[in-house]
C-alpha cells in the first residue's frame, strides 16, 4: 500500500505534525531534520511509528544516512518495494 512516493510523503508530513507539532507548510523533501529541530530522541519516535506503518524495521545503517525528509521517503519506498 505504501509504495507510492506521494503517499509516503503525505504520511510522513502527517506524522511530523502529530508527533512534533510541525506545520506541514514548513516541510519540503529537501528540509533537513536539523532544520525541523528533530533530535535523535525524536528520531527514535519517528522510526517506531514508521515501523508500525510499514511493518518493517529501518536498518540502523540506513537510519544513520538520513538527513532530509526526502531521504526518509526514499528509504521507506525501497523497504516497502522489497
Amino acid at each position, binding site marked *: 500500500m505504501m509504495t507510492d512516493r506521494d503517499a509516503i510523503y503525505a504520511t510522513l508530513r502527517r506524522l511530523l505534525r*502529530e*508527533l*512534533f*507539532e510541525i506545520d506541514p507548510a514548513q516541510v519540503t523533501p529537501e528540509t533537513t531534520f536539523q532544520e525541523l529541530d528533530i*533530535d*535523535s*530522541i*525524536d*528520531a*527514535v*519516535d519517528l*522510526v517506531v511509528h514508521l515501523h508500525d506503518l510499514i511493518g518493517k524495521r529501518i536498518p*540502523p545503517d540506513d537510519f544513520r544516512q538520513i538527513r532530509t525528509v526526502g531521504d526518509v521517503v526514499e528509504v521507506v519506498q525501497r523497504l516497502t518495494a522489497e
Partner: protein
Amino acid sequence: MRFAATVLSYLVYGLGALLVWWLIYPATAWRHPPAVRPAYARRLSRRAFRFFVEWMRRTGVWDFHLEGAQRLRGRGRVIVANHPSFLDIVLLFAFVEDAVCVVKPSLARVPLVGRPIRCCGHIRADDSQTLLPAALAALRQGANLILFPQGTRTPPGEPCRFHRSAARIALEAGASIVPVFLRYRPLLLGKGQSWHQVPEHRPAVTVTVGAEIEPEKVIDAELPLSVAARRLTRHLERLYSDWQA
C-alpha cells in the same frame, strides 16, 4: 599559593581515581554479587567525590555552598543540571545518592575516566535507541539519573538549548525531575579553559537544588510523548533562562 593548591587538587583527583578504580575496587568488588557491583561502585565513587570536594574546600581551592541539600534526598529521579565546568560532575557525584549519569561517548575513552564509567554502569549516550531503555531500567532500579541537557560544557550566559532526552525519559518513566543550578564565580575548567588557568580570585561555587518538578503537573498527560517531551523541555529551558537572567 592557590595555584599550587589547585594543581595539587587535580593531582589528588588523578591519584585518587587510580587508587579507587585500580586498587580498592578490584580488591573489594568480588565480595559483592555481580548484579549489585555497579551499585557498590557508585557508593565507592560517591565517597571518593565527597572526599575530593571537601579537600578542595579545605585547601582553599574554592568556596563552596550547597543550597537545598534536602531536596536531593530521594531515589528514582531525573537530576538535570546546567554544565559550565568539568567539575559539575564531581559536585553531583558527591551529593547525589546512587547516581547513574548519561555520559558523552568520547568520555569512555579518556584515561582514568573510562574505567569508573564502566564499573558504575553509567550510560553512554551514543545511540538514542539504546539510551532510552538503559535510562528507564536505571530509574526502575531506584538509581537517580543525572543528565546535562545541554549535552556538553556550555559557557554561562549562552541561551539555553536543551536536548530533549531528559524530559522524554522522565515522562516515559513517570519520574520527577530535580533541577540543579551550578554557578562558578569565576569559572574554572570551563569550555576552552585549561587546567593550569587558575582564576585570580578564589572561585565561589554554588550548587542550588531547585524544587522537584512532577511532569504530569506541568504537562497534559494526554499528549503523545513526543509532544509532551518538547513542551517539558521548553519548560526546563525557561526555568534555566530565568535563573540565568
